[in-house]
């Protein structure tokens, strides 16, 4: 066997190194302070994330992305897709860090490991976003997942949280196994786990290779489907999202989804970009099932957290439609959608953190009745975020949906395009119900909620601002998304 000489290009490894080492630092800091001062830990973790973010805007990086920035013998690459998704994940991480202290204080959780865990999860996500080798990608998937398993079960003393973590862990382990099994098939088909080599092997059109790769792809898709909560792999989602601490749910539904979609785009575009007929149809049907089931199930929920969980499933459906719509319109639409979804989703969860009471009570549809009278600002923010999720102009969500719809029509996927519109209309059924309750119903009872902390306010304001800025000036992010999509094959 011949090993090519290892090129150590440090540029590609800087983000994950920064995040991993920084995460360890935060862990040590927290241990030293015995978790008594959560704000210090949160601040340190945020500093690590901001430092990584700054590295991306450092003048070095454009050079790295312009040239062939692969390193570790093409196992990592700093390209537009990787950077875009990593930035989305880092921003979500920052939001989570801002929400966590007040939530944890309310729930009476003292331990401060949540902050380094968020950093570790983001490290895994950055590997997922920038990996170009199936083994590396698997590594990233596991780094991320392990951190998130722990995060989901963070409230050790609360049954729901523990149950959520256990379910997530068991099912996730299963899915990881299936994903790994898929990788073995790919290796069998291509003789390599590097995506570019997989693509080259597929280009030979050897029927045996294609056959093996196809089985491998099915297994990979199953694993992916689990992570992005696509129907029919979504069953864990509502239970886990409801049971996990609210800031963690926000993190999972925005960042984990973004990283998983980066993974999907990477595998499908780089590995199977030349053979779209192998997977387009399957992804399309997954998208259809996910849109329909997610929206229909969300319709009957009365708990806001669980409703947002189903809504998150539904949004995975729209994103999958974008993936199936192909390149480059679909790819850039998916990236824009991720950013738009982040804004609306994080804002909505931030409001839930602000109005929830200990044990996540007070998050029922009847509890928020008349919220407008007591908390006009929060009511407005939640309305803006939900309207964005529903895709009403002039919000970010509208442009996300519009771009995906447009890509679907361009790809002659009329069925999914029609379903995007229909299910969006359906989704108004549950989003508007919340807004109507807030603005038109009388308060059911007195609110005793304390005023939101600075961190929560910050997230709410930033989210609402982004929702409108992206809705009115979508070109700010659309251009970046298009640039990121172009280099993919």
């Amino acid at each position, binding site marked *: 066997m011949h090993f090519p000489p290892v090129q150590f290009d440090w540029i590609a490894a800087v983000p994950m190194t920064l995040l991993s080492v920084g995460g360890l630092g935060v862990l040590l800091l927290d241990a030293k302070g015995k978790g008594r001062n959560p704000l210090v830990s949160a601040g340190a973790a945020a500093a690590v994330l901001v430092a990584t973010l700054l590295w991306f805007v450092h003048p070095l990086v454009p050079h790295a992305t312009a040239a062939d920035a692969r390193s570790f013998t093409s196992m990592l690459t700093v390209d537009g897709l990787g950077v875009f998704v990593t930035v989305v994940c880092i921003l979500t991480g920052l939001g989570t860090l801002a929400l966590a202290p007040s939530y944890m204080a309310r729930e009476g959780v003292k331990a401060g490991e949540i902050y380094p865990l968020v950093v570790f999860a983001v490290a895994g996500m950055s590997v997922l976003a920038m990996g170009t080798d199936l083994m590396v990608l698997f590594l990233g998937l596991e780094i991320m997942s392990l951190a998130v398993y722990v995060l989901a079960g963070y409230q050790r003393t609360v049954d729901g949280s523990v149950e959520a973590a256990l379910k997530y862990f068991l099912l996730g382990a299963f899915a990881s196994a299936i994903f790994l099994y898929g990788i073995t098939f790919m290796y069998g088909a291509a003789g390599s786990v590097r995506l570019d080599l997989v693509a080259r092997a597929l280009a030979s059109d050897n029927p045996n290779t294609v056959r093996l790769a196809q089985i491998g792809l099915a297994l990979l*898709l*199953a694993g992916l489907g689990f992570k992005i909560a696509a129907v029919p792999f979504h069953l864990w989602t509502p239970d886990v999202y409801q049971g996990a601490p609210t800031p963690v749910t926000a993190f999972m539904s925005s960042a984990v989804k973004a990283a998983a979609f980066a993974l999907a785009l990477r595998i499908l575009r780089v590995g199977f970009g030349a053979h779209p007929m*192998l997977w387009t*149809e*399957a992804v399309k049907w997954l998208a259809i099932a996910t849109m329909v089931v997610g929206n229909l*199930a*969300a319709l*009957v929920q009365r708990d806001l957290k669980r409703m947002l969980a189903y809504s998150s499933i539904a949004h995975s459906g729209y994103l999958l439609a974008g993936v199936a719509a192909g390149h480059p319109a679909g790819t850039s639409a998916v990236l824009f959608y991720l950013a738009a979804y982040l804004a609306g989703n994080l804002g909505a969860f931030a409001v839930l953190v602000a109005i929830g009471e200990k044990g996540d009570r007070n998050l029922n549809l009847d509890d928020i009745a008349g919220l407008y009278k007591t908390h006009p600002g929060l009511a407005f923010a939640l309305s803006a975020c939900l309207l964005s999720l529903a895709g009403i102009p002039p919000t970010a969500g509208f442009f996300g949906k519009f771009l995906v719809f447009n890509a679907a029509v361009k790809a002659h996927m009329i069925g999914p395009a029609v379903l995007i519109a229909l299910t969006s209309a359906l989704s108004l059924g549950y989003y508007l119900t919340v807004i109507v309750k807030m603005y038109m119903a009388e308060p059911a009872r007195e609110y005793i909620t304390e005023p939101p902390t600075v961190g929560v306010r910050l997230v709410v304001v930033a989210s609402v601002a982004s929702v409108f800025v992206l809705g009115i000036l979508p070109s700010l992010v659309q251009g970046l998304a298009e640039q990121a999509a172009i280099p993919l094959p």
Partner: protein
Amino acid sequence: MIDPHTIGSLLCLIPLAPLLGATYNAFIGRRVAKSMGHLAVHGVACAAVAVSLLVSVAGFACLVSMPVEARELRQTLFSWIHVGSFDVPIELVFDPLSAVMCLVVTGIGLLIHVYSIGYMHDDPGYPRFFCYLNLFLFAMLTLVLGGSLPLVFIGWEGVGLCSFLLIGFWFAESKNAAAATKAFLVNRVGDLGFLAGMVVVFSATLRIGSPTLSFSVLRDLAPRLQDASFLGAAVPVVAAACFFFAATGKSAQIPLFVWLPDAMAGPTPVSALIHAATMVTAGVYLLCRTSFLYVMAPDVGAVVALVAGLTACFAATVALFQHDIKKVLAYSTVSQLGYMFLGCGVGAFGAGLFHVVTHAFFKALLFLGAGSVIHAMGGEQDVRQMGGLRKALPVTTATFLVGILSLGGFPLLAGFFSKDVVLWRVLASGHGFLYGLALLTSALTAFYSIRLAVLTFGGAFRGGHEREHHLHESPRSMTVPLVLLAVGCIVVGWLAGPTWLGLIDRFAAWVEPALAVMPQVHEHVDAEVEERAEIVATCVAVVVGLAGMGGAWVMFGWAPGVARALADRLPVLHGYLAGRYRSVFDDVYDRCIVRPLLAATRALATFDQKVVDGLVNGAAALIRLLSRSSGWFDGTLVDGFFQRCADLARALGRAMASVQNGRIQSYLMTLGWALAVVLLLLEFVR
């Protein structure tokens, strides 16, 4: 030495000072006046105008010190409209033309502000009045300083608005409100011409690749517009016609002059400022500003001259038979505006503009004098109730006489010089008919002006003893402006010092660089011959004018019975001339536009009531029937359908959600099935 840059950057003060004054009196003045009295109102208003006047004078002095070809100050405040290569900045231009206008507007404006202090003293709307006056000056100064058509248009509309507000100042009387509305509507008709002209100019410049509405650029582009056509006619012709139509509205020419006589419903200082000295000359100013278009469209110029000549003559004949002192002056204004347009029409823009200046002096003087008379008479405006006022109102009488003689063209007074220049230029341009018309008009003008003076001040008082007791000279604030204006009437004419007296026409030399020159049609005539001809023409004009004055003196002063006898001899003709004649245009409009419009409205209303309502009522019954059945349909079938749909969606949702039984074994089982489904899916779609 005045620094042009300093003055240039102060230009915006000229319009802005009155705007600030107006703002002050609109919001604060009334409240301050409660404690400090009227001074708080008129002090600020007059000071604002004084600032404008000072800056204008400084700008004028600055221009004088500059070389002739460079006489222009500019201030660009900011870019207003910017689309591609098309740019409309808010730009003020102070060149000899706008300098003349600014000086007249601010100078006479200041005098009229001062006069208003006395005239409006007891009016409850005192702050409002000064607010409107200042606002008017802001708009008027924007109009004359604007460097581009849109900016001029803002002023154009602004003065129209202020005119509306001031004519209807005493809006509680429906007659005044109606006059204001009439003025506004008629002006709006003219404004259409302005807008159309802008569109024509814009589209033409767009087609030649450099869209612009700025005067200086247009002036340079003008030769290239000559060949461009708009709807089959040359662009300069169409644009010039449009702008002249606009001018007939604002400057009260046939066919749109009908609003001006009614506009006398406003307070007299308003009549003096807006409806004699300044606003109504905006049309003349516009023609001078766009003179480069008119020299390229001589046919339009001929139309302008013809319309102006007819207007001048018609209005003068109407003025002969008016009994209301302000109405006489109003028709006289229409007539004199005709002289100005006559000058512009034959290409003598400088002469037209000079008549604007002299007319501003003597007509403002006459209106203010009339105001003083009305003040003394306790609101009476009918000259048949007056007479012999010379004893009680000596200052008013003396100054009014100066104004009257100036209007009538008495030699060596302002009006004489300017009218003489216009007449001469009409003759020199070879329009024999128009010259005859103008000469006739000048005889008529001399006649009605002396008639007015004699009826008002001559003879004995006809208004009864009660009134005679109350006659009094006006306060100082009113008489001082009168005296100043009278001095102006005597002096200002010499600016264009008649060349046949060996003097230089300073006014023409000053203003002509800013105007376009009509290309010479006739071969050049010998200068000496020309001068001799001019002297002859002047003599003819003097003789005609004096004859008119003498005739009026004979008929109304020396032998008052003559006029009466003449009227009795021709009762039908006199009845018509003194009655319906003045509203001949109003009658035509009434018959051709207003009444058909009202008739159509009424017909439509009837149609509405009888036919449409009938249909509606019938339809309503039908619809009630239909709606009852459709209500049943809706409630039972459609609502049912949607209710079922919603129920179905919920049921489906419940079914989907119920898969969520919380048991991890069943989740894993589903995962396995799902994997199988995906494998099969990939297998089948290949």
